[in-house]
């Protein structure tokens, strides 16, 4: 089904505040992964290594993101999440290992792949002086989106941005900026979407709204999504599988249910804390034995 087809991709945000519609807007838990005929995973990372001199930022990381699934990349600060995403986008040269995206090697096929991917992070901005429409026009042209004007109007309606299209990006609130950034990330209807803390700094209502739209996008298009996040409820809600990174290595991975069972915990937050504490203890033990 085309993303710019006749049916609206998302309901306007106003429906969230409509008493009769509000209940139906709540996600049912997790959207079932959409399978495709393609045998290769959306992302396959094998033994990925990135060293900065003596520092091992990423040290032998392997994971797969299946087509139509959502994978959570969890880890504390400095665990290697952003470096891993940088290598997935071809911005950072790996010291070792392989990355395959949609069956093609990254970074060798970077030019082809980037047209089929997109990225969103609160740590990058769009030019403040340009209006929302101008920004989306520029990025739409960079991604060579067909029927761009129509596409922008449709996404703006879906993300409740129509009234903001001619406002300068610098005059938007944090929540509005996130919605614009997500609109930009969906302009080219990416088959693989990388999100770096997509709801950081958002209030709970806006964050929930963003998650709902990501779920709807995946359900609509069968896209594969990789989310790097510190927000455990978000990961539990959105992700089919979770990879926990600690000090550049995969500390554990599995479905949220598998991880909860393995650690004997009730929430991913507790699992995350177990991993972080075990890591700290290992570092302390190493330091003691080194004395």
């Amino acid at each position, binding site marked *: 089904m085309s993303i710019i087809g006749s049916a609206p991709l998302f309901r306007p945000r106003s429906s969230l505040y409509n008493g009769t519609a509000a209940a139906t807007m709540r996600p049912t838990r997790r959207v079932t992964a959409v399978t495709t005929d393609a045998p290769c995973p959306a992302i396959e990372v094998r033994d990925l290594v990135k060293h900065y001199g003596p520092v091992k930022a990423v040290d032998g990381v392997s994971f797969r993101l299946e087509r139509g699934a959502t994978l959570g990349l969890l880890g504390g600060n400095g665990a290697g999440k952003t470096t891993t995403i940088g290598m997935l986008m071809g*911005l950072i040269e790996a010291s070792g290992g392989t990355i395959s995206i949609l069956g093609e090697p990254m970074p060798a096929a970077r030019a082809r792949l980037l047209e089929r991917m997109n990225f969103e*992070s609160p740590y990058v901005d769009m030019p403040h002086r340009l209006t929302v429409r101008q920004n989306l*026009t520029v990025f739409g*042209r960079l*991604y*060579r989106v067909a029927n761009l004007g129509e596409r922008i109007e449709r996404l703006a309606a879906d993300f409740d941005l129509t009234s903001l299209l001619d406002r300068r990006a610098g005059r938007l609130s944090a929540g509005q900026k996130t919605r614009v950034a997500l609109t930009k990330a969906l302009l080219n209807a990416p088959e693989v979407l990388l999100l770096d803390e997509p709801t950081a700094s958002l209030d709970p209502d806006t964050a929930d709204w963003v998650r709902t739209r990501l779920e709807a996008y995946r359900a609509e298009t069968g896209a594969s999504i990789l989310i790097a996040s510190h927000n455990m409820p978000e990961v539990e809600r959105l992700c089919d599988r979770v990879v926990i990174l600690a000090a550049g290595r995969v500390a554990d991975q599995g479905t949220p249910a598998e991880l909860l069972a393995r650690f004997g915990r009730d929430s991913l937050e507790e699992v995350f804390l177990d991993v972080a504490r075990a890591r700290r203890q290992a570092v302390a033990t190493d330091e003691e034995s080194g004395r």
Partner: protein
Amino acid sequence: MSRTRSPSEAFSFARVGAMILRYWYLLSNSWPRVIELVYWPTVQLLTWGYVQLYIAQNSTFFAQAAGLFIGALLLWDVLLRSQQGFAFAFLEEMWSRNLGNLLMSPLKPSEFVASLMAISLVRLTIGMVPVTILAIPLFGFNIWGLGLPLVAFFCLLVMSGWAVGLVIIGILLRHGLGAEALSWSLMFLLMPITCVYSPVAMLPSVLQPIAWALPPTHVFEGMRALIVEHTVRTDLLASAAALDVVWFAAAVVAFHRLLAAARRAGSLLQDGE
């Protein structure tokens, strides 16, 4: 999907056009940026123009070679503004924290550079055309009267400016905004040894070979020959063109090496200092 997917590997003029549009939006949305483009060349023109008028009243040589200072000033501004227009457009991406979005888009480095070249020409046109017109009634100097050699001077200087600009954005990619000052100041390092206002013969002999290795030196010598001796020195134009090719090729190599170093160092994800 209704998306069009043409061969992604090919150089895309559509993506270059998208980036030119991005910079055009920026200029059209920000009148201080437009004024700034005209402001400095105008201040320079007024300063040096009146100095030249004063000197010409007291010097036969300058009286006969009217426009020597102003011509040099205008051509120097072509060199300086072509480099700055190129580098500043790139800096706009760093200042607005937009570089990550661009680097993770299908935009190729070659397309990015081509758009920076194009927008530097736009900025140069906005900044320089009014000033060259202003010089006619104020100081009686019509640089457009230089004719075809002016086109050659312009192209050669712009090429030199782009070469320096390319190295600067390579350094910015590798070292971040900490290297921002280079985009303001690096060209001024060349100012004394490219002999903008005085002949190469005035330099100490040890510096003269260095001066002749710089393409702009040949242009400024050619400009003086044209204004003072009314001679078009094609030998100087040819040597400037040859040096420009070498300089630009070296700048492309340097840019690619700095970009590769930035990928290895992970600095493309950090656009701060």
